[in-house]
């Protein structure tokens, strides 16, 4: 099953032209990821030339560590966005799960795996509530997950009561996960990469993964084709929640210090990363690879601006302008492509 962009007035092409048209569209989508990777490469090169320390051992490590958590969240979010939904509660889930894990380990030594599992479960719990409301309540995802954002955030603040978990309370085994590395590559980016690769594989290869795209492209068509829409959407939210909770546990490992409003406001950064990465906000298209590249690009812009000693006041403005530029260029290219395709099939 191949996925094409939904466009009003898409030409009804003969099978052969359709096939070549499809491969052309595929090429554009692949080019989408290549162009983000290219932008990323240029950015890194430029910064490196201006400030060679940007790419020394510590610099690379910092880049990867900074990106790891956002990449995880972007992977979870893409799976939801592909089904034409959105999960605004991810930032508060990270906050709640980080605090829950911090509270759990504080003063006592539980194994690292138990902590990660706890984070995962907290997140999965939140995800299943959002997912059930969206899929079985059949209500707009944005409203429900905005509500969940407030509810989870409130619960987190209420529980924390201004309390803070300090690195001194967190057992060394957990902190080691955040700072340790294998062959010079820190654990966190490795974990993020593993989750990314596994998700990409499932989305690409498994029937259930393809069905997510079908739901996003056209819910009505997916329903008629017998796709279990509710179960798939619930699954997407469960996954996004679990990944966010997992990211919360990693947050604890990385920073050691946890307050109630960790990752506050991250939901919009995550959605930006996904959008920059070419996952259409209207569903049906995009890959988690693209989303992960988007996340990497956003965090790298931040690091590069810091290394280049650009006034930190400019960072938000530049990030916003780049996001707008990225989605505009993408849109313009796609419109041109569609026009070109229409001309070809008209011939």
């Amino acid at each position, binding site marked *: 099953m191949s996925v094409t962009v939904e466009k009003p007035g898409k030409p009804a092409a003969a099978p052969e032209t359709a096939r070549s048209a499809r491969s052309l569209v595929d090429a554009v989508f692949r080019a989408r990821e290549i162009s983000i990777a290219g932008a990323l490469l240029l950015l890194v090169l430029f910064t490196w030339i201006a400030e060679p320390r940007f790419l020394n051992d510590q610099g690379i490590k910092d880049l990867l560590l900074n990106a790891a958590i956002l990449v995880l969240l972007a992977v979870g979010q893409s799976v939801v966005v592909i089904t034409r939904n959105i999960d605004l509660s991810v930032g508060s889930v990270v906050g709640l799960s980080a605090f829950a894990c911090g509270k759990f380990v504080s003063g006592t030594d539980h194994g690292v795996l138990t902590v990660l599992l706890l984070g995962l479960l907290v997140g999965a719990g939140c995800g299943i509530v959002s997912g059930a*409301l969206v899929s079985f309540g059949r209500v707009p995802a944005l409203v429900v997950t905005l509500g969940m954002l407030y509810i989870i955030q409130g619960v987190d603040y209420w529980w924390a009561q201004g309390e803070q978990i300090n690195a001194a309370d967190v057992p060394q085994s957990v902190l080691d996960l955040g700072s340790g590395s294998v062959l010079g590559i820190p654990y966190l980016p490795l974990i993020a990469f593993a989750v990314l690769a596994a998700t990409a594989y499932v989305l690409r290869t498994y029937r259930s993964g393809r069905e997510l795209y079908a739901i996003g492209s056209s819910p009505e068509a997916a329903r008629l084709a017998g796709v279990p829409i509710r179960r798939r959407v619930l699954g997407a939210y469960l996954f996004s929640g679990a990944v966010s909770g997992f990211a919360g546990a990693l947050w604890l490992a990385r920073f050691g210090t946890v307050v109630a409003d960790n990752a506050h406001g991250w939901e919009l950064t995550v959605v930006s990363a996904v959008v920059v990465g070419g996952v259409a906000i209207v569903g049906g298209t995009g890959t988690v690879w693209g989303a992960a590249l988007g996340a990497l690009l956003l965090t790298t812009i931040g690091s590069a601006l810091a290394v280049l000693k650009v006034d930190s006041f400019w960072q938000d403005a530049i990030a916003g302008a780049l996001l707008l530029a990225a989605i505009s260029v993408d849109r313009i290219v796609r419109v041109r492509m569609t026009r070109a395709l229409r001309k070809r099939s008209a011939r």
Partner: protein
Amino acid sequence: MKLRWDTAVGVLLVAVFLTGLGTTDGFASRDNLAFAFNDIAEVALMALPMTLLVVAGQVDLSVASMLGLGSALTGQLWDAGWAFETIVPVVLLVGVAGGLINGWLVTRVGLPSLAVTIGTLALYRGLASVVLGTGAITDFPETYAKWAVDTTTVPGTFLTYPVVLFIVLAAIAAVVLHATGLGRSLFAIGAQEDAAYFAGIRVKRVKLLLFVVSGLISAFAGVVFTLRYGSARADNGQGFEMLVIASVLLGGVDFDGGKGTLFGAVAGVLLIGVLKNLLTLNDVANEVQVIVTGLLLVASVLTPRLITTVSAWRHRRAAASTS
């Protein structure tokens, strides 16, 4: 009779208000009422254009950032010795420019408004911090500040001047949305954009106009916020976009577009405001207030759905028993 959600929110608002009068000392005092409504003045102002946008199937996430930019500019220009009478038009122009950027990207480039305004959310907030940095400018004179603080009310009432402005703008917005061709075209665009276009509605121009009005009012809300707190900061109103959207959606305006009333949106805004005040007076922790907001929001979309499901089920059962 079918219960409409916006009526239900209105009734809930009255019920909460009466509960406040009956149970909480000090709720009915002039000072408290003035404070309660003035406290949400900016959110309420920004909720008006947001209602029109959401009815037309659009959203503007950049409103709170534009508020911040408006606030930062007000402070910086005041610090540079400009007259307040010059500052306000300049800030409003910046708001219009911001709205034009949003509207242009949505209508000309053809991007979804959610994606565009996530970008400008970062951009305008970033520009606000470029303008003012992390500092604050606080020395606004009484002559200007008094128009926004909650101790200055219209004589004989508990209505502060920002709230009066809100009432006037809400009346205008209600007339536009429910009694003009432009208003009907918003519902048409929200329900079926292509159909609206083929019916002769200038979809792009209408959308552009909405984003411009949203930018304009958000920038003005920045001036109000600055004077109300007597403090211009780049991070003023951070996160308000969520509260504005929550208020509008709570009032039964359908996020998918095409449905909703201005009455509902206003009731939603006021409900959040009155509830917040009432909970604060009763020493309910801020965290619980956040949870209540979230629960209300979820309930606001779930309840109408539940009512439909239950009535459909009863209908089916009745039909089954008669046959």
